Every structure is written in C-alpha cells, then in structure tokens.
C-alpha cells in the first residue's frame, strides 16, 4: 500500500465534511474517488496533500505517517486550477517546477521532453491569456507530473476537458501507471472509472459507502440478468423475461434467472429450446451502481 488513510475526521463550522474515512491505495494502480458534489472528496484530497489538517485520524505514505515534506513527492492537479494570465507559459512552468523543488536544469530538461511530447514547444513564449482553455489544461497537466512523482492526485481531471484532451489524459494516466506511478483521481465520469480504475471508494455524505475492486463491485451488484440471442422466440420456462426484441433475423431477449440457478443450469434450460447464438451476463454499469448506492442512503 503506497497510501493509507485511516479513520480521518474533519469538522467544519457548520457540518462534518469527513466522518471516519479510511481507504488503502495499492501501489502502481489507478484509484477512483467517487461521490456526488459536496460529499467530501476535495476535502479528503486536500488532507492527503497536507493543505488542510484532519481533526483526527492519519494519512500514511509507504507505511509512515505523512509529513508536509512528503508532499513534494505528490503531483497534485486541483479541481480549481489556473495559471498566471500575464506570465509566459515556459517561465510559469519553470516557476511551478522549481517550487516543487526541482533544480532549474532538471526542470528545463523535463519541460523540453513534455512540451515535445504534447507538441506545444511553440507556446513557450506565449502568455496564458493567449491560450485556449484546453491548451492551458495541457500545461497544467505537465506541471503536475513534471517532477516525476510516485503518487499523482487529480481532482476532477476530466471536468472541462474536451473529448480529445480527455482521451489524451486517459492515455497518459495509463502510461504513467505502467511506468510505476500510482494515480488517485476523483470524478463524476463513471465511464472513465470503468476504463481506468482498479479500485474505487464511493464517498457520500462524508462517509465511504462503497469500496473495493471495480470488477468485484460490479459482480457483487449483478442482477442475474442476461442477454441471449436465439433463432426463435423464447418460451418462458424457469426464468423471467424482461424484454424481447426481433432484430435482423434474431431474437434478442433480456432474461432474469431464478435465484437458485447457476449460469450453467440456465444455459441447459435454454439449450433445450433452441440454438443459442450468444449468451452474455449483464453487469450493472458503475453509473447504475453509483446512483443506486447514493440513493440507498436514507435522508436524515
């Protein structure tokens, strides 16, 4: 575990932003931090970054209690992010890199690499106010990862990204993971969670309400429904027919199996009826699980 958050509580004047939140982030993985607006994600991220201090509980990095000095090993892209409008891109990136503790030479070398990779060398002497929002986001991304941090934290990285840049960002996140980094990001975008994350925590009303491996969570939330493609219309026998469609010569039926049946017993039942062209278990999307879990919590 590269990062462990244990029983963190944070109380603000009017409300409790985090209430006994714990999570473990395995090394070299992509971790998703999900939750509706105001659930406490940003507060948790700020605590991990030592921007605010928790009232109780602790954050451990590589098994040791985290100190403010450790923050320089974290790359942090905040949700509310900006750049100095009047400053030139190159100078600004260099300044931010030096603030992270890089030497001028190292920073210049790394900047050259990334500016070439993103094909933005021509922007070096431009001012931020001359750039579009998408361009500024590329620069922000570069300044976040420039110092090669082992742990990267992105708060809502996809908000405000156009689809092209979002795709680029996804690719870079996976590439960074393959190079050995650990990435934590918070998001509303459940599609990217399925694409990227191995593990997630779902935070709602200051508490973790769902946590674990994405595949596991989806399997646990399986609703025993299947999509079956056959030549002829299915006769309902030992299962429940949810919907049925006749499409280009095939019947596509969504069915729900009985609780006591396994997949194989269901298949056997179907095989007696007709030729089966495809048999697929329908797993709920993270989006469905998200909405269901969030709505489960009763209003207080």
């Amino acid at each position, binding site marked *: 575990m590269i990062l462990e958050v244990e029983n963190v509580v944070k109380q603000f004047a009017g409300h409790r932003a985090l209430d006994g939140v714990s999570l473990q982030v395995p090394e070299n993985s992509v971790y998703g931090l999900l939750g509706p607006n105001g659930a406490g994600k940003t507060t948790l991220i700020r605590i991990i970054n030592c921007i605010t201090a928790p009232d109780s509980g602790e954050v451990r990095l590589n098994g040791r209690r985290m100190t403010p000095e450790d923050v*320089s090993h974290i790359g942090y892209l*905040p949700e509310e992010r*900006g*750049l100095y409008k*009047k400053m030139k891109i190159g100078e600004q990136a260099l300044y*931010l890199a*030096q*603030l992270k503790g890089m030497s001028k030479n190292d920073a210049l070398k790394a900047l050259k690499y990334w500016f070439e990779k993103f094909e933005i060398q021509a922007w070096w002497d431009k001012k931020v106010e001359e750039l579009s929002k998408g361009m500024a986001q590329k620069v*922000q991304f570069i300044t976040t990862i420039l110092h090669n941090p082992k742990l990267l934290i992105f708060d809502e990285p996809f908000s405000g990204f156009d689809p092209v840049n979002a795709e680029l960002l996804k690719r870079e996140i996976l590439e960074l993971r393959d190079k050995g980094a650990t990435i934590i990001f918070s998001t509303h975008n459940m599609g990217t969670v399925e694409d990227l994350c191995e593990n997630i925590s779902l935070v709602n009303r200051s508490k973790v309400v769902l946590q674990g491996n994405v595949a596991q969570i989806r399997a646990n939330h399986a609703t025993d429904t299947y999509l079956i493609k056959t030549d002829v219309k299915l006769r309902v026998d030992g299962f429940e027919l949810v919907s049925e469609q006749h499409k280009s010569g095939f019947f596509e039926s969504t069915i729900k199996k009985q609780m006591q049946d396994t997949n194989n017993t269901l298949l056997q039942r179907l095989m007696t009826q007709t030729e089966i062209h495809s048999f697929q278990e329908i797993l709920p999307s993270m989006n469905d699980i998200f909405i269901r879990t969030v709505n489960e919590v009763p209003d207080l």
Partner: protein
Amino acid sequence: MSKINLIIKREYTTRVMKKSFILLTFLTPLLMVGMVSLIVYLGSIKDDKVKKIVVVDRTGMYKNVLKSNESYNFQFADATVDEMKKQNDDGNEFVALLYISRDLSVDSTAAVMYSDKQVNMELKTYVSGMLNKYIEEQKLAAYNIPNLKQMVEKSHTNIDLKTIKWSEDGKEKEASAELALVIGMITAFVIYMFIVIYGAQVMSGVVQEKTNRIVEVIISSVKPFELMMGKIIGIALVGLTQFFMWVLLTGGILLGVSTAFAKNIDVSSIQKMQQAGQMGMQSVPADQLNGKMQEVLMAVNGLDFVQILVMFVIYFLGGYLLYASLFAAIGSAVDNETDTQQFSMPIMLPIIFAIYAGIFSAENPDGPLAFWCSMIPFTSPIVMMVRLPFDVPFWQIALSVGILVLSFVGTTWMAGKIYRTGILMYGKKVTWKEMWKWLRY
C-alpha cells in the same frame, strides 16, 4: 534556492518588468522636475502686452504718483466712471479703471478699482503700494520736522529671527522650522502614498491569484504563509526600488538642470527679486538676500539627513508590512476585486487619519497628539516622519519602532491565519464574523 526566495523573485521581476512600472519610475521624476521648471518658467516670463489702466482722479493729486512701468500704463481721464464704462463696452479699451474720489490721506477707502474681470494681485499690490508710500511721505512731511524722511528710513529695521538649536555635543546648528516642516511633510506623504499604493497591489495580487485559481496549485508545494510573505516582501522591494530610483533620477535631473542654467537663473532671479523689492514697500539689499540663501543652506546642513533617510526606510517597511498583511488577509477573503471595497474601508481609515494627524502634528511636533500618534503603530509611520526633522528624543523613536515591529509581527500572524483559510474558500460571502472564526481555527 529556497521556495520563498522563488516567490519573492517572481513577484519582484514580473512587477519590475511591467511597462507601467518602468514608465512610472522614469516619468515621475521627469514630470516633477518638469512641473517645477514650468512653474518657475511661467513665473519668470512677463506679460509683454502693456495693460492700460484709466485713472479717474477727482482730486487731481495723484498724477505724478502713479507711474507707468513695462506692464501697466496709467492714463488719466476727465470723465465720470459711467462714461468710461460705456466706452469700454467691448472690454478692449482698458483692463481696469481706478477711481479716486477724495484725498486718500483723509479717507483711506476713497480709491476703488473697477474691472470686467477680477483685478489680479500684482496690479492691486502695485497700485496700493505706490499710493501707500506716497501718502506715508505726505503724512510725514506734514509734521514739518526736518530730515524726518531720512530718520524714518534709517530707523526702518527688518528683524530676522534666527533659530539655532543646541545639539548634544554642544555645537550650535542653525535650524529652520519651515524647512523641517517641508521635509517632514514630504517624507510623511511619500510613506502614506507607498502604503496605499503598494498595499493595494498586495491585495489585488492575492485576489488575482485566488480568482485565477492558481493558489491551490501553489500551496500544494509551498505553505500559504510563505506564499503570502513572498508576495508582501517582493512588492516591498518593488516599492523600495521605485523610491530609490526616484530619488536618484530626480537628484540627477535637478543637478543636470541646475548646472546647465546655474548662471542664468542666479543672475536673473536675484535681479528680479531686487526689482520686486523696489516695487514694494521695503527694499532688501542684495547682500542681505545672499545672506538669506546662505541661511537656507545652513539650515539644510542643520538637518540630519542620514537619520531621516534611515528612519524613512524603517518606517516605510514597518508601516507597509503592518498594512500589507491586512490587505493580503482581505484579498484572501473575497472572491473578486469589487468585494474588497467594503473590507478595505476600515483599513484605509487609520491611514487617512494618520495623514491628518501628521498635518496637525507639524504645528506642534511635541504636543500630545503628535506624541501619541507617533506611538500608535497604525499612525506612527506617517506622524513620526513629520516629527523627525524637529528632533525627537531617541527613546521615543526607539519605543515607536519597537511597538511598530511588534504590531506588524502580530498583524502578519493574524493575516496568515485568515489568509490560509480564505484562499481556499470560493463562492461564499464573507463577513467580519466569519473572518474572526478563521482567526481562531
């Protein structure tokens, strides 16, 4: 390089490289010297058009008294005021009409000057000066005492009270209250200006960082307090740079101008002063005039300029740090620059009060108002600068600086706490009560 140095460097270089800073730094001394020269120049050129003044003298006694000179031409007319007024309908005939109805030695209010416009001071003093002198002579002559005129002229004295102050080593120094006043007011005003201008810059800098949303990126690498102090110190250096540039440039330009025109100015201005003296009631001999100039120079030497300059830098920094941290706290608490107004008002008030307290302190530099306002840290940087040229006891300076230092450490600490919370708060209307709460987090 440590992080706070990086921040200071960025704040300093981005501001010093700004076109507006460079323009202001180089143009202000030029403007100041230009303005002074313009005033001197405009004052020195004479209106070459001779102005005609019609005199309606019913007594007929003053024909030889009112002498024309290169500016004014007196013409006597045998007409009534109304007739002359009609003649001057278009306003081009003459600029003013002097009407003398009775013997002025009997009725000193019998002379009236009419004009379409307000009669200017120069003409008024010129005419009344000539009439006064004549009437005085007339009255003296009426006593019938021989040589009285010469006796009066001899007895005419002009007491010039010199002020000499005893310095501690027993030497005597010539002092000038007027010069001390001018120096004190100028330094106090410059400090006032710098606190307001650069304090406001700190505030808008903080607001910009917050509205730009860059602040969270930066405080993930440095502590909020470092960011705040870096900004405050960086801008202080900008202010000092500007001040010293102004001093150097103004000094340089003045030196250049005065050496280039030294001869012309000296000769012509002294001549002019002599002329003015002769025109008026009393004539100042040229050697006395030179003595006056020497006195001013002596008085300039009498002031301790090193002390004033050192204290200026100390009070500038102290006062600036005290207020800048408060301005930073306000900048951190609001979401945009328009919201800063309601919060900066209570901070601006003591500064404005200080400048008034400074003006009143100048009249009585050792009075209770001056003393207390030079101890209270919110007014001391300005008021003490006014008092300094009047020789303030050392213990008072030390106490005042001590209180100022403790206070800015205090306000900076407080501001740091508000700043830390404020910069991460978005979209919330902040109240004083809220800020008080942040202070105690």
